[in-house]
């Protein structure tokens, strides 16, 4: 078995740091918050200061505390939605790709239909009919989001499964009479790991966007603090036009940072799946010291003049260029 070497590019490391930071925030954020996010006892509209790092809302709440507390709901819902959606796309994708025939036709049609329906409007319609008490339930919201976010992954996984289906080890398992679901989930699925990981990152990314958007337009319970609700209140109190940037910028930046972290991680997975995307692995400095151009141009293979070459066959008096 090949050992898995995850590309260790600066992009991936940065991504890991960002995502790691927000995971810690999800776990510890609520304990670190200096005040309760609902506490309205401060002076309204304070600009950032030592007491209130991110200032206060026009209702006199501490924005820094809201941001810290809001991390948890935002990320937990996105994780639930991402995991459920990935699981769904895995089941649908593998079944369609492995079983083939009518199953494939049916499931592919289903994913294509879900792919063609614009996700957010569907989400809004479903959500607007949800009873108010369900809207504060992370699990319900997560499930609804996952319903609109699984189709893309299913399509990618199906394609990959089809290419795996006829490989030797799968054939072998089939021939010795393994049960179909066992072949699918114990032989095929492990080989889909990179694609599943990429699909998980994407659906989590999508889910953060979807959840925050729902909260922003007031479709989740306003009693649960998340970054979207913060933006909802900011917009509702006209913060953007009254210049209260410190109210809506922190949650917005947090959302963008989490997303950036996830996308950077995904670069690593992309390079793992598609070796053509891997960088040549030399820094600009190394290239210069070897006499290589900064980037290789297609159709102009460079010439290296390196002293550290292994001695080559002494067959013919070597007149290799030495300048």
């Amino acid at each position: 078995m090949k050992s898995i070497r995850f590309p260790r590019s600066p992009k991936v490391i940065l991504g890991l740091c960002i995502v790691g930071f927000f995971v810690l925030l999800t776990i510890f954020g609520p304990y670190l918050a200096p005040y309760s996010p609902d506490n309205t006892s401060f002076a309204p509209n304070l600009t950032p200061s030592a007491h209130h790092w991110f200032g206060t809302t026009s209702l006199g709440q501490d924005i820094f505390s809201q941001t810290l507390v809001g991390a948890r709901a935002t990320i937990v819902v996105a994780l639930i939605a991402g995991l459920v959606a990935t699981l769904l796309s895995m089941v649908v994708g593998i079944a369609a790709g492995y079983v083939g025939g009518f199953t494939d036709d049916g499931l592919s049609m289903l994913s294509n239909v879900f792919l063609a329906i614009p996700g957010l409007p569907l989400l809004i319609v479903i959500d607007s009919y949800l009873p108010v008490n369900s809207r504060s339930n992370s699990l319900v919201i997560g499930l609804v989001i996952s319903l609109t976010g699984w189709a893309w992954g299913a399509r990618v996984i199906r394609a990959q499964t089809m290419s795996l289906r006829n490989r030797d080890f799968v054939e072998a398992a089939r021939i010795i009479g393994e049960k179909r679901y066992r072949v699918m989930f114990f032989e095929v699925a492990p080989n889909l790991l990179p694609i599943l990981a990429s699909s998980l990152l994407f659906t989590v990314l999508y889910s953060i966007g979807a959840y925050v958007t729902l909260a922003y337009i007031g479709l989740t319970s306003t009693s649960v603090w998340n970054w979207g609700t913060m933006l909802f209140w900011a917009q509702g109190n006209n913060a953007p036009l009254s210049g209260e940037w410190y109210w809506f910028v922190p949650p917005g930046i947090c959302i963008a940072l989490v997303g950036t972290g996830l996308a950077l991680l995904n670069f690593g997975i992309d390079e793992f799946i598609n070796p053509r995307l891997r960088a040549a692995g030399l820094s600009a400095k190394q290239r210069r010291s070897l006499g290589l151009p900064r980037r290789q141009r297609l159709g102009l293979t460079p010439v290296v003049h390196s002293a550290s070459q292994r001695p080559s066959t002494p067959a013919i008096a070597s007149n290799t260029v030495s300048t």
Partner: protein
Amino acid sequence: MRIIGRRLLLYVLTAWVAISVNFLLPHLMPGNPIQTLIGKLQGQVTPQEIEAIRLSFGGGIDKGLLSQYFTYIDQLFHGNLGVSITLSSPVSTILKASVPWTIGLIGVSTLLSFLIGTVSGALLGWTRGSRLDALIPTATFFQAIPYFFLATVMLLIFGSNLHWFPVLGAYSQNLHPGWTWPFVASAFRYAELPVVSIVLSSVAGWMLGMRNMMITVAAEDFVLMSVAMGLSKRKVIMTAARNAVLPSIANLSLAIGLVVSGALLVELVFNYPGVGDLLLNAVQNEDYPLIQGIFLVITLAVLAANLLADVVYLALDPRTRTETVA
């Protein structure tokens, strides 16, 4: 053509699913939202309007689900999407006024964004390893910013602080809508900032996708052969780009859905009088007939855009067109 036929079938099916979801949701959700709605409306609107709303949901609940379903579909084909509760006029009338704004805004920004993103992504992929690579993390960051947040920031900086662009609305309030020069000019002025902000939000996606495809295609033999043939650098890049753009177009269906979703919220931020703004007002007022009507219209528009993308794809990739092989 067979392929277009198949896609058309898919979209018809999708439209049917969307319509059915639209019908089923209010009937299946706990708490009987239709009854609640109609109860709330008693006395607020005329009995005729209540009847129209009831019909748009499929008629009386005593009729059975299936019969209600057919009534609903029949009403739909006759253009009865119900009556908006808050605006007390037919949903179809309201949509007719706002759909053109949205199509204009989203159409223009999607086109611009696709063009800019594809061209810059092609260059980025081709010059991989050069200093331009520094753009990638920035682009990734922009891709991760929610559309509405970026729009808000743009509004704050360029609209209310620097006053470079007019904000809020789609045209100057001093003008009367119509095909007059001042009005059209004003509409363009007012669309600038929303377009810029949608393009900024969506361009990174196209760019990064195109970059990956460009790198992948540049490794193909035929690109190397175009170099071996002594073609100019521009021709070589075009050879790669022409092939690399195909997957972008094939994936347009996913992308259109996302862009439309994002752009709808930008309308809200700028008070742009399109369906997005309408939808969010409807949501806040629990104006179910309007929500449903908007959902249907958006879905149909997205499906039409998908079909268009499919036709373009077919025109660009001869391999999908061939049905007879020599």
